[in-house]
């Protein structure tokens, strides 16, 4: 798994590539925690290049979502592939997280209403 980060306005996008599993979830948690620690609370996770996520990856999303919201921000997901979308739908994550078709849509959604 690889990650890269970019910022547009006060929205931070973390681009994730590869598989988020029990081994790589910790690295993803670190990247997201670093952003939160730097007061970047408006987060988009770009899942466009994520092939698979295990429940360890979902746990990272849950932790980040709660922290971002407790600081007045949010974590939003973008560009899920159908397999990953299915995992998030079944487990109910799509009922607690906002999901967008593209990174642009997700970034812009923060401008709509804060």
């Amino acid at each position: 798994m690889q990650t890269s980060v970019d910022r547009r306005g006060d929205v931070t996008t973390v681009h994730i590539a590869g598989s988020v599993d029990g081994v790589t979830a910790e690295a993803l948690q670190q990247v997201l925690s670093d952003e939160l620690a730097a007061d970047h609370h408006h987060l988009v996770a770009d899942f466009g290049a994520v092939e698979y996520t295990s429940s360890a990856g979902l746990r990272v999303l849950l932790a980040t979502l709660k922290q971002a919201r407790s600081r007045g921000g949010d974590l939003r997901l973008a560009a899920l592939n159908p397999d990953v979308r299915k995992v998030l739908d079944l487990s109910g994550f799509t009922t607690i997280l906002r999901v967008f078709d593209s990174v642009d849509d997700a970034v812009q959604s923060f401008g709509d209403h804060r």
Partner: protein
Amino acid sequence: MTAPQPPGGAPARVLVVGPAAVGDDTIGHHLQREGHVVDTARPGAEALAKLRAEPFDVVLLDVAVPGTDGPRFLEALRSDADLADVQVIVAAPADDLETLGQYLELGADDYLPRVFGPAMLRARLGAALDRRRLRDAESLSREMAVARNIQRDFLPEALPVARGVELAAVLHPARQVSGDFYDAFVLAPSGTFVLVVGDVCDKGVGAALFMALFRSLIRASADPVGGGAIQMIGGRRTLVRQALDSATPADLLTRVAGFTNDYIARLHGRTNMFATVFLAALTPATGQFDYVNAGHEPALVIVPNGAILGLMPTGPALGLGPDQSFLSGEGTLEPGHSLVAFTDGLVEARNQAGEAFGDARLEAALQAHRPSASSLVRGVVETLQAFTGPAEPHDDLTLLVATRTG
């Protein structure tokens, strides 16, 4: 300043115990040059206090100056159970066999001639660290074996038996302990079977601890009388009992899911742990069942030579956040039909080429076996094992089957 990386791996924490100060102490000096973390102490109370305060790997006991402090210190060290894993190397003049013998008898692990070359010091220290790691690994493995045995106690010792329904189940942990669980118990007086299959997020010890919690919350809230939760409800036992007796199985399941969810989300929210759980309440005599699927893999209803029906989620995984609502679904097992609940470790199991077992292979295996719970479980496990071959399992695997016998 970056410390040099010692040859052969991570730096060791070494306490040099002896009369010399670190500045003119050749042993300590050599060790620091090799990149190890070195502290010094005089034999006796000072050295013992340091050992108890910080985790040292090795004690290098310098007995160049003979005295009574050294043996007494070693005796005290060896009689402290908390320090049993600390390796002790005695540095003594090479010809002083009497002193060396005395210290080895008192429990020193190895010795080093007082006049030594760097290669010898490295070799002795390396061997001490290897012994230390082996002891650590052994003690961890003993602890994990204990945990595994205790965890087995959180699974039902035997599956309930009733005319009309046959149950069978299997759970294969990927590691010593598992985040998967299943449960099956009978509600009195109705005789309803409650069936549970759950998968706590992530793997390993953390998931195993929460497996025990989820399983117990579900069992105790579904069956407060049989489940041992009488203390929780105290004097209102009768009241609760009446309320439960009048609840329909569907009400009971949605209440169990809501209670367990809120308990985890409110009391353990900081850990961000959650579990996907399939719960069913099955009446053996009629085959009628209600279910709540909390974010779990769809359980399957198998009709021999017929369609396979997936029981989709009726609510989110338990623990995502407080105040989630859970709906219930219902169905009927006709004679010969089976209800199959499992965890994703089954469909996501991979062979050596990295290919997943998948829904299609699971469904084919279920259709291929005689409609009996035990033959379905056996058949699926054998098919899976033939598929994965010797590949290491990457996730826990659980399968619970209820077959209506007539």
